[in-house]
């Protein structure tokens, strides 16, 4: 029995989990939960209205009125129709008013700003995300990219900004989207209620690689989050093998350092994502590739074929240099 369950039900569950990690239909935070309820309220109400209208239309098409009716009777039918239409309009007004109120209360329910909230600053770039964890103590402030970790059950306040063009931050499982607009600051607040990994994607067309601008959101227990934060605050791990030492030399000596920062090394550029702990992130290139040594080498060797038009140039490296720098980067956990 349990074998049967394992074989048949588990794949289904996996499939549901899989298709649900960027879905508004699978809410995993208070805001998304509220919107999910509102969605079904609207969908069911509108579905009923649509079905009723179609039924009445079908009735109108199928009925066979008498060919010739006296004038008087026709006048009566006309007046009756007038009353029915009037009633239908009144019903429309009521339904609309009800739905308007429902959405008003949903907004009020969602956007309660919490004083204890964890504050994270997100900045959209063409085509990646910069993530800054704020803290009253400067020792706990750090910058990462393309991956957002959140502690389960703690309210979070995301401060959204854009570095170049308009982007939009959307992680459907957790909350509705909010635009990132140059020259403006927007805020998104919610409380994750279930641990898991969710996918966010830019929702406002932002140019050539708009399709490849994703971000992973990891919701984990406060303990796991605390451990992760402690790792992130630290400087980059020191290279161990000779290859990794060579890799760091490549990173510092070649064009890489002009755009990327690896804290604890000479690389301190700010145009591209911070790479201090890039090896610990699940993906590279804003969700395009998994963080494996092979993918890292492929990306560095030819970023323009993998993500045409992105702002990372191809830096000519020898085979040994490429090997070394990718070995070093994936070790930066």
């Amino acid at each position: 029995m349990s074998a049967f369950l394992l074989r048949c039900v588990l794949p289904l569950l996996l499939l549901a989990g899989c298709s649900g990690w960027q879905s508004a239909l699978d809410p995993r935070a208070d805001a998304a939960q509220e919107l999910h309820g509102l969605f079904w309220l609207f969908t069911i109400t509108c579905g009923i209205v649509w079905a009723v209208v179609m039924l009445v239309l079908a009735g109108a098409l199928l009925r066979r009125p008498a060919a010739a009716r006296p004038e008087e009777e026709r006048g009566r039918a006309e007046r009756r129709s007038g009353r029915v239409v009037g009633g239908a309009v009144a019903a429309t007004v009521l339904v609309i008013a009800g739905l308007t109120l429902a959405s008003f209360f949903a907004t009020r329910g969602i956007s309660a700003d919490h004083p204890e909230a964890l504050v994270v600053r997100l900045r959209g770039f063409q085509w990646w995300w910069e993530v800054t964890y704020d803290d009253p103590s400067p020792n706990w402030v750090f910058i990462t990219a393309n991956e957002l970790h959140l502690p389960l059950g703690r309210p979070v306040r995301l401060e959204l900004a854009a570095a170049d063009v308009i982007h939009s931050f959307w992680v459907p499982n957790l909350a509705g989207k909010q635009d990132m607009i140059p020259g403006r600051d927007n805020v998104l607040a919610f409380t994750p209620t279930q641990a898991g990994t969710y996918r966010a994607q830019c929702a406002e067309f932002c140019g050539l690689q708009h399709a490849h601008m994703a971000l992973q959101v990891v919701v984990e227990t406060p303990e796991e989050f605390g451990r992760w934060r402690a790792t992130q605050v630290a400087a980059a791990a020191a290279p161990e093998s000779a290859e990794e030492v060579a890799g760091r030399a490549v990173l510092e000596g070649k064009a890489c350092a002009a755009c990327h920062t690896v804290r604890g090394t000479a690389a301190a550029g700010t145009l591209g994502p911070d790479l201090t702990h890039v090896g610990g992130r699940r993906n590279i290139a804003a969700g395009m590739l998994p963080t494996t040594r092979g993918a890292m080498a492929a990306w560095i060797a030819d970023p323009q074929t993998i993500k045409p038009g992105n702002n990372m140039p191809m830096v000519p490296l020898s085979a040994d240099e490429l090997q070394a720098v990718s070995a070093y980067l994936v070790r930066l956990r």
Partner: protein
Amino acid sequence: MTPAERDLRDAALEATEGAGALERRLERTWRTREGFWGALSTVDHKIIGRRYIVTAFAFLALGGVLAMLMRLQLARPESRFLSADLYNQIFTIHGANMMFLFAVPVAEAMAVYLVPLLVGTRNIAFPRLGAFSYWVYLFGGIMLWVAFILQTGPDVGWFAYVPLSGPQYASGKRADVWAQMITFTEISALAVAVEIVVTVLKQRAPGMSLDRIPIVVWAMLVMAFMIILAMPAVVTGSSVLIMDRLVGTHFFNPAEGGDVLLWQHLFWFFGHPEVYIIFLPSVGMLSTMLPSFVRRPIFGYLALVMSIMAIGVLAFGLWVHHMFTTGLPRLGESFFTASSMAIAVPAGTQIFCWIATIWLGRPVFRVPFLFILAFFFTFVLGGMTGVMVASVPLDTQLHDTYFVVAHFHYVLVGGAVFPLLGAIYYWFPKITGRMMSERIGRWVVGLLFLGFNFTFFPMHILGLQGMPRRIYAYPPELGWGGMNLFVSLCSIALAAGFLLFFVDAVRSARKGPPAGDNPWDASTLEWATTSPPPPYNFARIPVVTSAAPLWDERAALPVASGLSVNRRELLITTMGTATPEVRETSPQNSIWPFWAALATSVMLVWSIFSPWALVWASIPVAITLIGWFWPRGTPEDDA
């Protein structure tokens, strides 16, 4: 006094000159000259309207090809059939083409052709402006497509949000092509709008008081007013954008005190009314076609007219619902939620009146009526999803996803294109004198209806599953592949439906069975003349005594007389009651509108490259305008 100078009126002409003299003389006065130059200089609203319709449908076909390319690309994950660069151009041009070169122009085109016939006059007001408008529209459309072929097609979305379309992030000339394409369309739309307003308000047949105007004419009038009020916002926007790009102003540059949201306000202040500019004419055409197929007058005439006006007004109060995720103040959000929802009330009123009309009548299931039924199914569904996206909180999940793609195709294709195609089947016999095929027409309706719903309904689900709009590729692990493949396959049926429609239209124009004057036994004035109508539309101006003149005056339609036959003359009537006021001359054919449009086009295309174009190219524009308005020495009181 020589016979040519005699004051010839149509009243007693046949008594002095014999039978057929009236038609002969009117024909000579109103006809379009033969040959190439004659074709370029005609101001006959029917010829211009026909060209407008054919051109708009040609752009529809081109836009459809782009849609199929996109579906091919999205059929499987991470497809490399189209590059990101090409895909972005294609979705931008698909949107811009469908909105600016098909949907709005085709509504104007139907108005240019139909309104003068529906109100019983001989030509549209300011017909040279109509000719000018058509040429400007044609040249603007050609410019966009030539730019696309030359790999300079706009790639910033049909909404061209700054800063992405600004000088810093959109190098090259692509965004400028978009901005000037807008200017082209706006000029032509404004020109037509003015013509429609004046024609409807001042040229109605005697007796066609406000409560006897066919609903389609009301809809066209409201559309024209909306164009006049909405278009200036986007003209301002696109001009300011091109100034930012070309002469270094900073309207949209936040670093210099500009504001990027200013663009969105300007664009959507036009962009939302635009949706109703497209939708209302179809509502009107539907309301005017419906009585012919249920054999009774429309139910709730006053309610329908009021609904059209209410939509026209409310449409200006809900542009912000395209900006619900930009971080608005709470009060603003609530206001725009309420106003967006409120538009469901007049829209619902219309639906209820139409259903009551069908309920009280006896339906005749011909092709235009089948399109009306397809409209009901599709549009009401689109209206429901419209209520959903009108809610600010819900919209934060739905905005910029495939849910919205599904929603607006439901309202635009279901709400505007289905009635439009029904209208083509309905008025085709009037325009060409021949019927379209009933048998093929049923296939067209079936293919379009099923193809459309199977193509677009799954997109709602895709959107809820997190698929954003305007992405040229998606990773396989998100599980969108299966449904996207299904959508792409179903779009073939939709394309086949359109193809069959074009085949039927082209074939029927030459080989369709002759239609006769009034093949649907309809009640409105355009069916009171021959199919196709003569250059002068009506040999004698009809006099209207009811809202359904051809049903209530079956024996013989009363007519007015007294217009000159050897000079182009129209009857001007009062706005409210359509009481005859004055005889007014109508302009002769002229080649100058063509030259003026050409000079304007040169100026606009040149201005993509240099701001000095506005200075130097204004000289030829001025010359052509002088030619256009050069006094011909006709005494004023001649009219």
